[in-house]
């Protein structure tokens, strides 16, 4: 017995070494055999927290790239929306054809300059003709409209903001299909617009949503415009004057999509012909 203890004492380092190594081997085998079985992985509280804190910092460093990537992704997704496709199935077809053609494509761009506090406001985008932007294209963000492209240089373009005396867009209630024109009359208030031409008998309430109609050849249908803030009927008037809160926050518009209507020319030409026939 005494010899055993002596042996253990003389070889204590070796034994500790063997013990620790066998724990390691056990950990390895156990870890390979069972998923999620031990707490010794980076999902545990300490290491996960350290990683998330560090990620917060590194994420910040990569914010720019990530934003650009997300914008590009949004463009892709946006193009896939059914709104932006036109149904090519003719009414007379017996079998319902579900083929869809792309009608709108979106070009992402960054706002490099903008104003909101003038009567006529403009934005400047960092993309131009080389990116496929042409005058009279619509400019939107994910949940609202921004304006219409005015001038284009090879690498930049200017946009007439919706905060402009000439801007006008056809808007309808999301729920009821009644439509009117949305204009920006509200002097120097970049958060509200005015909806006109809604007849007296239309029923709506504060907070209702407005979206673009299909009449415009600039904006796709069903783009969110804003919500109703308040309404009144001026004496002797048959139409409401409705104050609308923009869904677009013009003060911090940063990334926008320029909308290219692939069938604009076709539509224009056809309408022109009809007009000429009169």
């Amino acid at each position, binding site marked *: 017995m005494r010899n055993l203890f002596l042996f253990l004492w003389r070889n*204590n380092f070796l034994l500790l070494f063997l013990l620790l190594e066998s724990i*390691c081997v056990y*950990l*390895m085998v156990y*870890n390979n055999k069972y998923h999620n079985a031990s707490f010794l992985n980076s999902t545990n509280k300490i*290491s996960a927290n350290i990683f998330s804190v560090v990620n917060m910092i590194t994420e910040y460093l990569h914010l720019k790239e990530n934003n650009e990537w997300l914008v590009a992704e949004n463009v892709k997704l946006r193009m896939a929306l059914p709104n932006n496709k036109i149904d090519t199935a003719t009414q007379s077809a017996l079998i319902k054809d579900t083929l869809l053609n792309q009608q709108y494509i979106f070009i992402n761009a960054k706002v490099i300059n903008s104003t909101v506090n003038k009567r006529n406001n403009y934005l400047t985008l960092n993309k131009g003709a080389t990116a496929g932007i042409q005058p009279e294209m619509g400019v939107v963000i994910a949940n609202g409209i921004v304006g219409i492209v005015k001038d284009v240089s090879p690498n930049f373009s200017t946009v007439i903001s919706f905060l402009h005396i000439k801007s006008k867009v056809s808007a309808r209630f999301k729920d009821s299909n009644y439509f009117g024109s949305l204009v920006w009359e509200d002097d120097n208030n970049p958060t509200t617009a005015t909806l006109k031409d809604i007849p007296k008998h239309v029923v709506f309430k504060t907070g209702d949503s407005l979206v673009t109609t299909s009449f415009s050849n600039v904006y796709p249908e069903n783009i969110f415009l804003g919500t109703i803030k308040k309404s009144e009927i001026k004496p002797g008037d048959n139409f409401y004057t409705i104050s609308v809160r923009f869904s677009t926050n013009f003060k911090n518009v940063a990334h926008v999509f320029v909308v290219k209507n692939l069938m604009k020319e076709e539509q224009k030409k056809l309408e022109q012909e009809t007009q000429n026939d009169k």
Partner: protein
Amino acid sequence: MINELIKQLFRFAFLLLLQVLVLNNIQFSGYINPYLYVLFILMMPFDTPVWIVLLSGFLMGVSVDTFMNTAGMHAAATVAMAFVRSYVLKLFAPREGYEFGTEPTLRYMGPAWYLSYSVLLVSIHHFIFFYIEVFRFNEFFSTLLRVLLSILFTMVLVMLSQFLIYKPRDRK
């Protein structure tokens, strides 16, 4: 004693975080994975009891494993390295023995001693770790390349650390 403990704890945390947050993200190529955290074992004072060195190696290895999801692999390599350290120290001991309370540093022991000491231990650690990590023999030579390049790179970092961190303390 308490000071020494605090110093070692600080060094432990620093090397661990440096390893998992910085060095693990270095990507020169898939073949260079420096593991500087072994410096913790390399730098323990000469008179540290072997069982403490073994346990510290285990703790360090398990901590790195925890961050890298390699349960047991780093621990096994580091414990082996810590075990060999005591023999290497005995082997390389100067005739008059080590001075009490000193640490194996480049300045104190000289470049020739320090290089052979650290290269030997780092090599043992890296060989064990990379071969456990791969755990098959048909990638023997690519693993060997990875081991050698990583040893080289870790050694560069180890030598750098000797010039960077411990300058004022070792001036005698």
